[in-house]
């Protein structure tokens, strides 16, 4: 017989996305979500206390002398089951974090609840791409590549034009594409490689350094500019460093003013929960919404399949490539289709 609290807990199993505000450590986000869920689960009345027969010296009402004390058997609730003595029923809910965001950045952060934490591993292994919006400012260089750091250098940026910027972006993208082909372990002269490249489905199969699969300039109003980046295996520090190097390539200096993750694999920004909605009432529908996605992530985890079914490694790899292609097709539905521009000739789009 499940209590109401247990029934609520059973609904808290799966993955969902949260919008992390800037300036907040990811651990605080995770702790806040866990605290809110625990208050919701502990809000239910505690289970009924056990009863114990106790012999007490009570005044017997039947006899005439009221001062007569006799031992009477009474059934009383055991005090050890009192909520003030036992404390809250639940002390912990397993909340896991997907690909982390550092304190300076904001954006989509995937959290896993209960059994959904296993899907976090699968999500990591599936090497999904992530969309970022980077905002930068020319003319300054700091020690931690952000506008809040200690200024090291200042320079002029009058000579920078949009065309120069886009040329540098194209160069960066070309270099990254070469890395992508290397790490995706396809034979460059095969038909399969060509088809994947045309569709934009090349992905690194194992651990790789950060690779930028898509890069374009959204706005350019000197000294401020905005970039949209699509990348794999990245860290936010790497992206800020890339922005700094972009400035150096343009013979000026640049700092990053904002890093915002708009998509993490199949989790979009539109469905991410803002900090005023981190309660059980809003998290349960979010988990339900992402249930299908979570199931697909688990199904596509080729490593797990290989481990459980003991298939041959090549078969698993082929399966994973086709499956990850299907997964990427899902991702592309909502977001901007930058990877379509990821053709061999990068000068075609502008």
């Amino acid at each position, binding site marked *: 017989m499940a209590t109401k609290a247990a029934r609520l807990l059973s609904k808290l199993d799966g993955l969902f996305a949260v919008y992390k505000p800037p300036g907040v450590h990811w651990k605080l986000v995770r702790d806040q979500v866990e605290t809110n869920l625990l208050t919701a689960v502990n809000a239910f009345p505690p289970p009924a206390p056990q009863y114990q027969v106790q*012999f007490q010296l009570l005044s017997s009402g039947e006899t005439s002398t009221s001062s007569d004390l006799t031992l009477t058997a009474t059934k009383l609730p055991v005090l050890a089951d009192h909520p003030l003595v036992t404390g809250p029923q639940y002390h912990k809910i397993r909340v896991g974090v997907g690909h982390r965001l550092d304190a300076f950045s904001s954006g989509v952060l995937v959290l896993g609840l209960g059994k959904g934490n296993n899907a976090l591993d699968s999500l990591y292994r599936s090497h999904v791409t992530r969309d970022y919006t980077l905002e930068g400012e020319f003319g300054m260089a700091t020690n931690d590549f952000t506008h809040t750091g200690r200024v090291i250098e200042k320079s002029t940026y009058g000579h920078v034009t949009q065309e120069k910027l886009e040329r540098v972006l194209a160069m960066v993208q070309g270099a990254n594409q070469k890395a992508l082909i290397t790490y995706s372990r396809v034979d460059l002269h095969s038909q399969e490689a060509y088809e994947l490249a045309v569709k934009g489905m090349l992905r690194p199969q194992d651990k790789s350094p950060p690779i930028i699969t898509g890069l374009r300039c959204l706005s350019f109003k000197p000294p401020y500019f905005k970039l949209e980046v699509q990348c794999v295996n990245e860290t936010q520090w790497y992206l800020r460093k890339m922005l700094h190097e972009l400035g150096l390539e343009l013979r000026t200096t640049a700092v990053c003013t904002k890093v915002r993750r708009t998509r993490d694999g199949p989790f979009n920004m539109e469905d991410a929960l*803002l900090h005023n909605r981190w309660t059980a009432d809003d998290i349960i529908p979010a988990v339900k919404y992402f249930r299908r996605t979570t199931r697909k992530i688990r199904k596509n985890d080729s490593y797990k399949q290989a481990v459980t079914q003991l298939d041959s490694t090549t078969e698993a790899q082929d399966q994973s490539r086709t499956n990850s292609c299907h997964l990427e097709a899902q991702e592309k539905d909502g977001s901007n289709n930058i990877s379509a521009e990821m053709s061999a000739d990068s000068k075609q789009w502008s």
Partner: protein
Amino acid sequence: MYVCRRCVCVLRSPALLWGKAQPSVTPGLAGRAAGAPDLYFMSTTSYSHSSASPAHQIFCQSFREWWTSCGVRFFSEQQPVSQTGTRSLPQTSEGNITAAAEELDRHLEASGGAVSVPVGQRIIDLDALPYQSPFEEISEEDAIQIIVPPNLPPASFTLRDYVDKSETLRNLVQLGVDLSKLEERRNVGSMLVRLDFQADVAPRLFFLKDLGVEDSHLGPLFTKNPFILTESLENMQARVSYLKSKKFSSESVAAMVIKAPYLLNFSVKRLDNRLAFFQERIGLSAHKTRDVVTRLPRLLCGSLEPIKENLKVFELEFGFRMTEIQHIVTRVPKVLTASKKKLTHVFDFIHNTMGVPHSLIVKFPQVLNSNCLRMKERHLFLEFLGRAHYDPAHPNYISLERLVTVPDDIFCTEVALASFEDFERFQKTL
């Protein structure tokens, strides 16, 4: 929390046992617990017939005598089985065990302990039961007087094992004290188990009631500060009289004790030092100091070093004058105990990003106490809408107080004049 063995022994002593008001047996138990702990754990069946011997004998008698009086025979002391006894024994073999046992008991009491008998005449009757069988039927009066020792573990990590048996713990739970929180603290559990309700807890309850603390506040008070129960009453009385001598009314003293439960644990010298600091360093008048301290009594409890640092930050880093600081402290005393880092973040944002001058901050000091993230989001939204004017001289200015205190939906509709969905969409672009 680890409740030590000694404390449990004290708990097991009858003065603290719940529901077993049987004075005739108590000295015996106490004697046993203090003197012979090994005996305590060995005894199982012998309790049932302790009723036969008066309790005061137990206390004085030695180990062997006590067991003998219970009817346990030792093979080293052989009782003479008289003619009456031998004649009764064949009868017992037929089945009347009770009669034989009673016969033996009478024998033992009559003989009064070890009686020397010549070696040749010692007969050991192995069939006779030297003690009462547990299945034997006894009278109601005997049944009532059976003492069942409480099955308490000698040491435990939780108070759940002792709360049913301890009068103190039971009454604390009824008052509303959260024992689950207290048992997490080191040594507090042992201390509570050792307390005697009538001697320790009750006088302090009366003291707090006389002070003016209501019953509903007693539970949370003891949960936060269980050490009131071990603080001496004279000291607490002296502190209360000191506060009253400083012209704190009795209601304000009660309110201060409720808000800062550790207040009465601090010495008069310390309280005096604190009050002097607030008057001299900040320059508040006596009346204003009383008001500030009544509203935030934990100023008197914590260390003065963070307060001194915060004051330095206000003077040097923020650039407030002393009069302005006095006004801010009188309005929002919490800024004195706020974290230095958070305070600097908030002030930096308000002064440099929002462009609010010092004079306006002094007029609305609660902005220094508000949540920085919330304020940032709201200010950036207003800036995006072009409504971020805080100077009262501006026609459509927004008061700082409304910016930080008003809840989200009212902020969107009345202050920002936009929909809540727009605000949420904007928050996702930050």
